[in-house]
């Protein structure tokens, strides 16, 4: 398929940005001549070694699995809770102070305690990811549900929808754009808490490879891992964005052109 020059430029722009960043890195590294700052070429060369190594791959997959579970469970719990809070003052009054207390606490700061209770394994790390993802998703679901037009709910009630049906069939879809914004933030936070949790409780995972390499002074591996984690983030976000755009096509701004006809 032929692409117009405008589309071509838009597609090429992110690639150019990445190449630019690597170029600056390369130049800076060559200029500084610091052992702990390998060149971009060295770091990129180390990537196939990591991805070709079975153990490293197992580690990365273990990380992704924890992340997926933590994110998935968080979304499943947080959306209903946020929606209920948005539609019921009593529920909001109960949960709001609790969440206000937890929100500013870095979830990784809770890790030592959770480790004492649940050990250093998967459960602890998944729980930390869960906590990291939950709050933005709850918050955005809450705001989204609160903003749902009363008259829309009344219209549903007049059609015979019960309160529960209204929550699922009106509040949920109406708040979906806002909910998905929260999920997107949550996804990035999942990646961040995943690496942080593995930094604190090393055992397996992408963070484990990174910090072990750091301990051993294998700086090209360290930077290669940073590139890998960054690439994972970009890919996950891009996939999520595709799904999101599909789900909320009806609210996207490209439709913001009303036809002139009464």
């Amino acid at each position, binding site marked *: 398929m032929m692409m117009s020059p405008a589309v071509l430029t838009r597609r090429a722009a992110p690639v150019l940005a990445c190449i630019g960043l690597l170029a600056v890195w390369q130049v800076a590294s060559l200029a500084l001549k610091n052992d702990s700052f390998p060149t971009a070429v060295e770091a990129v060369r180390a990537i196939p070694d990591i991805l070709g190594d079975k153990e490293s791959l197992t580690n990365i997959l273990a990380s992704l699995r924890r992340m997926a579970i933590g994110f998935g469970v968080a979304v499943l719990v947080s959306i209903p809770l946020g929606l209920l809070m948005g539609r019921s003052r009593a529920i909001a009054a109960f949960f709001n102070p609790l969440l206000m207390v937890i929100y500013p606490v870095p979830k990784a700061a809770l890790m030592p305690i959770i480790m004492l209770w649940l050990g250093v394994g998967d459960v602890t790390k998944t729980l930390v990811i869960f906590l990291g993802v939950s709050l933005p998703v709850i918050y955005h679901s809450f705001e989204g549900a609160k903003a749902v037009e009363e008259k829309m709910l009344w*219209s549903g*009630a007049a059609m015979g929808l019960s309160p529960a049906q209204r929550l699922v069939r009106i509040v949920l879809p109406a708040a979906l754009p806002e909910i998905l914004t929260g999920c997107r933030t949550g996804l990035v936070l999942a990646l961040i808490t995943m690496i942080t949790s593995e930094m604190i409780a090393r055992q397996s995972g992408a963070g484990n490879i990174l910090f072990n390499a750091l301990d051993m002074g294998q700086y090209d591996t360290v930077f290669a891992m940073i590139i890998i984690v960054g690439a994972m983030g970009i890919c996950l976000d891009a996939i999520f964005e595709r799904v999101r755009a599909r789900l909320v096509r009806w609210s996207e701004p490209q439709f913001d052109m009303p*036809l002139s006809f009464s």
Partner: protein
Amino acid sequence: MKAQQNGRGSNDAPHGCENDRLSGRLLAKFVPLNVRASETEDGMTVVPARPSEWMSPVTSQEPASAIIEINHVSQVFQTSARKDHLALSDISLTIEEGAFVSILGPSGCGKSTLLYIVGGFVSPTSGMAKIRGHAITAPGPDRGPVFQEFALFPWKTVLGNVMYGPRQQGVRTAEAEAQSRALIEMVGLKGFENFFPKELSGGMKQRVALARTLAYHPEVLLMDEPFGALDAHTRTRLQNDLLNIWERDRKTVLFVTHSVDEAVFLSDKVVMMSKSPGRIRQVIDIDLPRPRRRNELLLDPQYQKYVVDIERMFDESDEAGAPT
């Protein structure tokens, strides 16, 4: 699975007690007979706000039966701590079946609140509203609202919005779709079935909202300043189209507006309200022939007289202020 759903839907009829409904209708039929004396020479009825005195059938020969009764409804809102605002004060009103009744008043007179009480969206502080003799406690498909804000489901297409009610009522998809397509055509939106609300202009959205409400066959249409957010041209077109649609099946309509022209043009009866506290000032029968055509009506001296008289009555009352 679908057939089962369908069956359940039809069993769950909104009114449980058929006997009560009948007796309510019979009672209402007899009430108006002894209160027809209030009509004046020019066909205009100007009567005080006491329900017993102005309850008269609209213009038809046979006495119409009351479908909605509002009995001594008052609504108090708590504006701030310890400060109460009396939005509606002792409102009593009877709406006859098939009548087009407008509630006209300045903003803040509680006219929308009154409509929401009939809709079951708001519970009155005291008093009671009834439909066919049944107390209104919750919204139901017998009363279909159309709001100024359209309140369409933005994630549904035009067709999806219109089909929503029938599907909820248990109508099969194919049947609901056929009915909805016909309704969409009736409101003049053929070809826009697969558009999302966001792609439509205000006037088109309100057409969809009207079709969506008509789709589940409510007995009463509750229209809350439906054309208030539209430009003058669009508003006139929608008024004309609403009348055309209404004249086909003569559903009962309760229409809230602050426009005197609009109220007179559309209605059989105009309920004038004053504010602080919201009260019924006067109920005026609009005795103009139907079907009404705008270009004829605007030149009709009788139409003009209604408009001028109503505007003057609003001007005369200091506390009410003229509706714009």
